[in-house]
């Protein structure tokens, strides 16, 4: 398994980036998902949507060029790309809930065997609120979880059944971690790929959920 935490994040971002197709409308969550935009394959151009009312978000501006009315859903300064549009929250969630967003990439606290995701609260400990996550998971065409495979103390995050409050009953489509790519299928969680420097045995050891493991599990097609 990959020990370097920064490299682990890059592995996740690079692998998620391969899931995005030219022309996709994509919503990236805060944290690791945000990194995905840095690793898009050549000739893949996507349109980044943000809950606060923008389609066509560009990278952070140069220092000194920030505008107080140009921010992302985390409140950080952004830029507009040519062709970008701004709109109100109703339109923003019309895009999200209405099935007009091709892919949403989110972090998770837990994902379970049924593909259910919990990512918005730990009762009694951390209650940030769901923000736009429930609408995104309910409405986006494809839901990709991008997260580190285990929590602090190596506690598995891909588990049998979520114990934390669910974000949605809609199943996620794909789980990409620093150890594996796991597809949520009708039959269960299918181990599709392992990360570089990672074995199937390690994935199994750090996953509580049952995995369907094919005879041949390829390594993620990314370069480190």
């Amino acid at each position, binding site marked *: 398994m990959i020990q370097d935490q920064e490299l682990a994040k890059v592995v996740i971002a690079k692998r998620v980036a391969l899931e995005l197709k030219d022309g996709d409308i994509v919503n990236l969550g805060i944290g690791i998902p945000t990194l995905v935009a840095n690793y898009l394959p050549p000739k893949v151009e996507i349109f980044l949507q*943000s*809950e*606060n*009312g*923008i389609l066509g978000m560009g990278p952070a501006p140069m220092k000194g060029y920030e*505008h*107080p*009315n*140009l*921010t*992302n*859903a*985390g*409140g950080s300064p952004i830029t*507009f790309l040519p062709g970008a549009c*701004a*709109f*109100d*929250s*109703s339109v*923003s*969630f019309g895009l*999200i*809930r209405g099935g007009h967003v091709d892919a949403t990439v989110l972090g998770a606290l837990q994902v379970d065997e049924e593909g259910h995701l919990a990512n918005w609260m730990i009762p009694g400990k951390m*209650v*940030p*609120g*769901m*923000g*736009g*996550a*429930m*609408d995104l998971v*309910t*409405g986006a065409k494809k839901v990709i979880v991008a997260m580190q495979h285990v929590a602090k103390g190596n506690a598995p995050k891909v588990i049998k059944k979520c114990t934390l*409050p*669910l*974000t*949605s*009953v809609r199943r996620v489509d794909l789980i990409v971690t620093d150890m594996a790519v796991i597809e949520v299928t009708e039959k269960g969680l299918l181990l599709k790929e392992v990360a570089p420097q990672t074995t199937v045995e390690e994935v199994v050891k750090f996953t509580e959920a049952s995995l369907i493991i094919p005879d041949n599990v390829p390594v993620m097609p990314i370069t480190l």
Partner: protein
Amino acid sequence: MKNKVITVEQAIEMIPDGATLMIGGFLGDGTPELLVDGLVRSGKKNFTIIANDTAFPDKGIGKLIVNKLVKKVIVSHIGTNPETQKQMIEGTLEVELVPQGTLAEKVRAGGFGLGGILTPTGVGTVVENGKQKITIDGKEYLVEPALKADFALIKAQKADYYGNLFFNFTARNFNPLMAFAGKVTIVQVEELLPVGGLSPNEIHTPHAVVDYIVRGNAK
């Protein structure tokens, strides 16, 4: 035609203790800071706030929380303001969390004369607790009642003297929705133009829903 332009002090004077306030903005972007600061100075309290979030301790709605002027918030997110969570745990602040898209539509419904909306968001989660469910074409929806407020405090970049509004970039967010849903809607504008100074095509919100205009921009 009455003149809608008033001072911050005149605006705050209208707002009583315990009022329900919708306040525009997304993590402070698009929040009428002059009106928020006016509320803080007034010492009025026990407000119920409907907003996207509680921003940061030193920004936007966060300042109302830090100064303990709020008894309840109806918001989608409190993660950027530790004070909100602290008061919630202490039991001095009631927090009702609503999915962001649902919140936007509840506010829109309130201003648009609808009783509420049907949404699939939240079905099968703790959000559905205590709510009516309706099945249409085999798919379940939550009934989410509309929201209204005594006052909507919003922010626009430009207005004319009638109160036609233009919002700037991502500062639009909840503002045009809340403009309709306040019994009294007060807008803070950076730039006040003569009537006719905005093209009919660029007006985001018609003057019919704007009651008062406060001019200025927080530093």
